[in-house]
């Protein structure tokens, strides 16, 4: 019978799981780089429908950005609790992170609905297409993160975590922080810099 081990450390002393996650995040930079560049190129191409300055609600998006930023704090506190093996705090901080993420996604759904009502559809202009594609992709990433967080809370409650608990929490944390840093770039380049 094969001996199943949950230790992911390799002969190099580096965790293979962590190495894989960082390689994945490095490749994600290329994905979002392409989407951000395309938006930057097309943001001024408005043949019909509203222009960015006519529809962006900076106070609203600023609050959303702040919420996502604070979810990074709660996530890192969950990772810290995982290293201290404090299960109660891990569950608490993971749940708070998921709730903050859900608030952000809710805000994005509200924003998309408001923009659509103001006349900006997906195919209205190149600006609309590139804006919805970029922010939509980011929203999907946040949603996947929320699903992972809530799944982890469920798995932790059943004590069926595959591998080291702290490492699993840390990997989901890395993904969550990545989603946050992508938004840091989007918030500045898309919302704060005028066309």
């Amino acid at each position, binding site marked *: 019978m094969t001996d199943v081990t949950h230790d992911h450390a390799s002969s190099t002393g580096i965790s293979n799981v962590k190495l894989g996650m960082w390689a994945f995040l490095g490749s994600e930079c290329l994905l979002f780089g392409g989407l*951000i560049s395309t938006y930057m190129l097309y943001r001024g191409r408005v043949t019909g429908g509203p222009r960015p300055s006519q529809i962006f609600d900076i106070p609203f998006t600023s609050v959303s950005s702040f919420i996502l930023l604070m979810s990074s704090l709660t996530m890192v506190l969950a990772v810290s609790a995982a290293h201290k093996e404090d299960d109660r705090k891990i569950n608490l901080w993971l749940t708070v992170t998921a709730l903050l993420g859900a608030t952000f996604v809710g805000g994005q759904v509200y924003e998309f609905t408001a923009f659509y009502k103001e006349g900006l559809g997906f195919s209205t202009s190149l600006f609309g297409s590139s804006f919805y594609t970029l922010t939509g992709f980011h929203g999907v990433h946040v949603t996947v993160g929320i699903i992972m967080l809530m799944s982890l809370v469920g798995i932790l409650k059943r004590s069926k975590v595959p591998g080291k608990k702290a490492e699993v929490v840390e990997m989901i944390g890395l993904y969550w922080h990545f989603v946050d840093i992508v938004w*840091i*770039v989007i918030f500045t380049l898309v919302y704060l810099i005028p066309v």
Partner: protein
Amino acid sequence: MTTETAPSTHEKEHGMSDAGYIRIALILAAITALEVSTYYVDFGVLFLPALLIMMVVKFVMVVSYFMHLKFDNKVFSYLFYAGLALAVGVYIVFLSTFKFFLQ
């Protein structure tokens, strides 16, 4: 014998305490407030450089402290920043071919 001020295993491995993370979050929140203020206050010629610098500072702070890249094995830093540098390089060339920077 351990004392209350002795760093935990997590702090030894990652170099940060929970209070340290909260301090970083407060700095990030303050920078975000400054970023938003550029929308309402006229910064003149400093507007664009200031915004881009604040964006980079926030990015690096989250990656270094919240993602522990500052305290982790350098291989992870090379992997991530190589991907980031490749993305930035490729898309600067991409945008240049469309004369984006001449607009």
